[in-house]
């Protein structure tokens, strides 16, 4: 195909978007919604995955002491902890430090809970050398006198993994459903354009246009709508992730929640999803049309 034909056909495809602007706008909105919702689920799944990874990699365990344990006793417990094999580090974390951290996050809510009214226990943050001896080390720690409970973040990770598995199923379902919806919407838009241009198509056929020549403007139309929709969806997701990040930073600064927002891979995925839904939608509808009505020349 000649270069000037490609330019001509691309121009025709773009003109068609403008000429059918209502349908183009409608399909852009639906496509943006599909991509946005799909992206939200992917973003959620990615964040949960990262959070799990972060929790697991930290291998930090918090040992809460009884409220009756004095500061001298705490020191002794600290020494005993350090004597346990497999302990890499052991750091004392006083109840005052804990309440201060909560106060930073929750502000006035923690007023009146300082000093003697502080309900939080003293604690030790420990890390291990060898994670394969995790269970054994936990057992030895729990047997120490004065230890009230062990805050095992692995439980959180385990629970998050369970949640993440569910999110994965939802993610696959959402992607499948929205992919179908996107294809349906784009192919319908292109099909309507085709019916609007059936006179041109019959003339093209009568003067010997190849199917590829007839298809290109419709594919250009579908791909442009898909591409534009993916840009809008990325912008919206970026906006959403920024808002979520800010809220998370304000609400739970001391947690291990990781929220990366949109990265390059995800941007590329979106562009690819938009382009391919436009391309496949366009190809499907024009193929169907050319097989049925599109072959008519003499009598329309």
């Amino acid at each position, binding site marked *: *195909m*000649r270069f*000037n*034909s490609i330019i*001509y056909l691309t121009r025709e495809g773009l003109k068609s978007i403008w000429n059918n602007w209502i349908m183009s706008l409608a399909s852009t909105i639906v496509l943006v919604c599909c991509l946005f919702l799909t992206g939200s689920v992917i973003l959620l799944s990615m964040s949960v995955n990262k959070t799990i990874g972060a929790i697991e990699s930290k291998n930090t365990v918090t040992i809460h002491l009884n409220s009756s344990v004095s500061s001298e006793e705490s020191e002794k417990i600290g020494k005993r902890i350090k004597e346990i094999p497999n302990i890499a580090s052991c750091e004392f974390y006083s109840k005052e430090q804990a309440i201060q951290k909560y106060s930073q996050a929750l502000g006035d809510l923690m007023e009146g809970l300082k000093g003697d009214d502080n309900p939080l226990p003293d604690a030790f943050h420990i890390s291990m050398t060898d994670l394969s001896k995790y269970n054994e080390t936990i057992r030895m720690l729990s047997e120490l006198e004065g230890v009230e409970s062990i805050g095992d973040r692995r439980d959180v990770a385990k629970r998050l993994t369970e949640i993440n598995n569910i999110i994965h199923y939802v993610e696959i379902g959402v992607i499948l459903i929205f992919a179908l919806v996107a294809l349906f919407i784009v192919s319908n838009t292109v099909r309507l354009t085709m019916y609007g241009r059936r*006179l*041109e198509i*019959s*003339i*093209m*056929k*009568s*003067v*010997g*246009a*190849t*199917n590829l*020549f007839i298809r290109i403007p419709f594919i250009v139309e579908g791909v442009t709508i898909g591409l534009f929709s993916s840009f809008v969806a990325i912008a919206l997701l970026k906006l959403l992730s920024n808002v979520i990040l800010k809220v998370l930073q304000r609400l739970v600064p001391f947690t291990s929640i990781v929220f990366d927002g949109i990265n390059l891979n995800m941007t590329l995925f979106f562009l690819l999803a938009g382009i391919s839904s436009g391309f496949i939608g366009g190809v499907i509808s024009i193929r169907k049309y050319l097989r049925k009505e599109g*072959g*008519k*020349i*003499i*009598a329309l």
Partner: protein
Amino acid sequence: MIEFKKVSKEYSNGICAVKNINLNIQKGEFVFILGPSGAGKSTLLKLITREESPTSGDLIVNNMDVFFLKNRQIPYFRRTMGIVFQDFRLINKMTVFDNVAFAMRVTGASERAIRSRVPYVLSLVDLADKERFRPTELSGGEQQRVGLARALVNNPDLVIADEPTGNVDPSLSFEIVELLSKINHQGTTILMVTHEHDLVARFNKRIVEIQEGRIVSDVYEAKLANEA
């Protein structure tokens, strides 16, 4: 140029539109296909353009056996012919120039070739001064001449005119056929489908009459027989 050998066409609904037709049209001929509505004229054209394929028999058009044409060959096959429609089939949002150029663009012609060929073809149909007009600004006769220019722009060996005078003023019908005749004199084969007996009678051309899917008379052949 066109050869029907025992060609029949039966549609999936059981209607047999063309029955065992034998017809031979030589290069450079002007042939009227005459017949009432439902006689099978349109099916005949659909077979020639390979919009439909014959149920049985052989059909050779421009040295190609239509029956054995592959789908990807059909566009190139159609480039050897030009089609003029009863309803003109012009794109109203395009100018006269662009309507004619459209037929060249779909075959991948360069802009340079288009700029040189289109004005020439428009001058052939006496529309050189109307190339910037839109079809809605033209009379029925002029619109059909644009249709004819479009059919001619790719320099086809064969022009098929499907009731080209059906939508124009009777006084202009003669003018359209005369124009086709002029093109025929330059060597292009013309096949014109019509049901207007009076119009056909005014031209000394071969007339093939079809009724109920069969050829009932072929005046050219009859003339030859008389001469013999």
